[in-house]
């Protein structure tokens, strides 16, 4: 009897061993180098491998500047990743190039994606298929320097809620010397930072327009709302004088240096601002307009499955993608990287909503928009140029908007696959 049990145990042991050996499969996960992201992924991989003994995941990383080129080049050479991270704005290019496989509907049903994730996940949908899912998302908020608020006689615990309050607070904080040189900005003005997103997805909507139509393929800001939004933005420097583009080189540098009362930036800046020792800072939602309309810009890196993953590797990739987009993984990601979970259930927890830093970003996610960039860098440059024409060359806002809209339409059309 004992012998029989032993034998059975041995058989069972061998068979699981054999089963595992047959199942042993290695998949590659690619992302760009960013210390906390790599660490978080290492941790996720360890957890995943514990739960799935037959699968090994190899993490491969490249510097951000090379990342896209590497993925594309590796795809041509036929040795790319199985699961890869990609910026949502690269999707068109990656789909057109046949790099990504549509997410299998059995493992990732559309109804579930649409009900569980924040609505911005729609940016990963092309036609009838989703091509990726995010672990974490980023949104914008207004950072403010509590010390400067107190010095200017403002209540550091009630940051501005509307655009008018924002301007008023900024005007109180801004300081100039006797000859009019800016010493402290009320709020940073940096189109090259996040301000172009603020103008595009937030201000234009708050002034009653839309930045684009036709799935962001057609520029629509050459309108009254667009003009008003840009007038508001440029007047911050030209009339209200709350700051100056290029002050301390970058908006975030001015804020970090304690030389700006407020700045609009994203979740990804939290890590850098956490090391500030000289003053206390707070975060609040982006200001609403007089009618209470709010908007936000959200973006994310998604994870997609490579078109070359087949058979066992595809199955393993599906499992891995399901794990890294699970609430458990998002929790690890939030703790290690500081980015917000992409699933509503994981993000909108009581603890997160009480958190004074995460809460404003999370609220922003509910009404955030995600621009479907065709050529992110060129479209951003176009917005920078549009503002500079008004600020530096004295071009009228109407003319500058008109010129920018035509130029951006050309960029979009040229980038269409």
């Amino acid at each position: 009897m004992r012998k029989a049990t032993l034998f059975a145990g041995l058989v069972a042991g061998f068979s699981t061993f054999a089963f595992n050996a047959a199942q042993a499969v290695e998949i590659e996960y690619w992302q760009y180098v960013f210390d906390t992201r790599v660490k978080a992924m290492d941790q996720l991989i360890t957890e995943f491998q514990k739960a799935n003994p037959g699968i090994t995941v190899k993490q491969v990383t490249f510097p951000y500047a090379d990342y896209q080129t590497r993925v594309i080049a590796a795809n041509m050479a036929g040795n790319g990743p199985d699961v890869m991270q990609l910026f949502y704005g690269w999707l068109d290019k990656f789909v057109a190039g046949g790099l990504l496989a549509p997410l299998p509907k059995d493992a990732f049903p559309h109804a579930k994606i649409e009900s569980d994730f924040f609505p911005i996940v729609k940016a990963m949908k092309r036609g009838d298929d989703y091509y990726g899912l995010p672990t974490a998302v980023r949104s914008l908020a207004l950072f403010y320097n509590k010390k400067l608020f107190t010095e200017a006689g403002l209540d550091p615990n009630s940051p501005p809620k509307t655009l008018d309050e924002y301007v008023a607070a900024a005007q109180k904080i801004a300081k100039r010397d006797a000859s009019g040189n800016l010493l402290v900005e009320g709020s940073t003005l940096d189109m090259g930072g996040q301000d172009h997103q603020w103008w595009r997805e937030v201000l234009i909507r708050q002034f009653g327009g839309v930045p684009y139509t036709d799935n962001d393929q057609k520029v629509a800001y050459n309108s009254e709302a667009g003009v008003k939004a840009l007038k508001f933005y440029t007047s911050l420097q030209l009339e209200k004088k709350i700051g100056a583009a290029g002050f301390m080189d970058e908006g975030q540098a001015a804020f970090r240096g304690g030389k700006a009362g407020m700045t609009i930036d994203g979740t990804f800046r939290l890590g850098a601002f956490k090391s500030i020792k000289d003053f206390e800072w707070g975060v609040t939602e982006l200001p609403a307009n007089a009618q209470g309309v709010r908007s936000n810009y959200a973006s994310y890196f998604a994870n997609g499955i490579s078109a070359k993953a087949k058979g066992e590797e595809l199955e393993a990739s599906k499992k891995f993608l399901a794990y890294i987009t699970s609430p458990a993984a998002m929790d690890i990601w939030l703790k290690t990287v500081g980015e917000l979970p992409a699933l509503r259930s994981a993000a909108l927890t009581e603890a997160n909503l009480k958190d004074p830093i995460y809460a404003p970003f999370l609220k922003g996610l509910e009404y955030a928009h995600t621009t479907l960039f065709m050529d992110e860098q060129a479209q951003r440059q176009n917005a920078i140029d549009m503002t500079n024409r008004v600020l530096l060359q004295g071009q009228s806002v109407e003319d500058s908007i008109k010129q920018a809209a035509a130029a951006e339409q050309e960029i979009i059309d040229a980038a269409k696959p």
Partner: protein
Amino acid sequence: MAAIEQQGAASGRPGGSPGTSFGDRFSMRTRRLVWVWSFLALPILFYAIIRFYPTFQAFYLSFTNWDLLRPAKFIGFANYIKLFKDPQFWKVFKNTFTYLIVGTPISLVVAFTIAFFLDRVRFMHSFIRALYFLPFLTTAAAMAWVWRWFYQPPPIGIINDVFGMLGIPQQPFIRSTDQALFSIMVTAIWAGLGFQIIIFMAGLRAIPGTFYEAARIDGLGEWAILRKITLPLLKPTTVFLVVFSSIGFLRIFDQVYNMTTNDPGGPLGSTKPLVLMIYQTAFNSYAMGYAAAQTVVLFTILLIVSLLQLWILREKK
């Protein structure tokens, strides 16, 4: 080549090595040629693969619409037509030539003046020389960041602070569409100065002292000595530096890129050189074919400018 062969012949083994089939069949000269070429083949092969093949590939790509993802399709001269119609290209073209035409003479005159006087300074000579050379050793990225802060408006920017003290109005520098290019050019000249000074000084040292003595005995003034002796005899050095510095300015990139990272190419593209445009076209927009066409244009410009300079500054025999 002939000199080398003669030398080789002089030191070659007498009589060769009878008995080997190789030696029997070929003459001494042929054998030597085989040896020479087998050594030369390595660098030639290396160059062909690393240099020439990609160059020709770039020429080919400039006639395609390659975007890294889909196979390249031949589209004839479409990229070139697009390029010549692109107002941004002409702006960038103008910027590049401003760097060249303004930057090269200024940097050479400054470098020569410093070298000329430094050559006569004995007191702390090597220390001063090292100070001038130091920027050349510093990475462009680090330097550019320091200069970015120098150019800031007051009270942060040192230059504007000094201007304020002297009662000169504040300047926007890299935040201005008119001044940005020259602000960056100054840093580029400053960075390359050390190298040019060293080369000029080497050139000055190579002029025999007897010429100067003779001139002084004949009663020539300093100015005449400079014009009649120093400058003409310094010509090879000057030619080298003109070509070298011109190519440097035509290919200027790191200074511009690092000084205006948040708005690459300065406000409204006022500082953008051709190389930065190529970089952005290729690695931000992934329009590889279009970028290749721009590269071919840059290559042609470099070739023409270099040949032109060599021809103008050629030795008149």
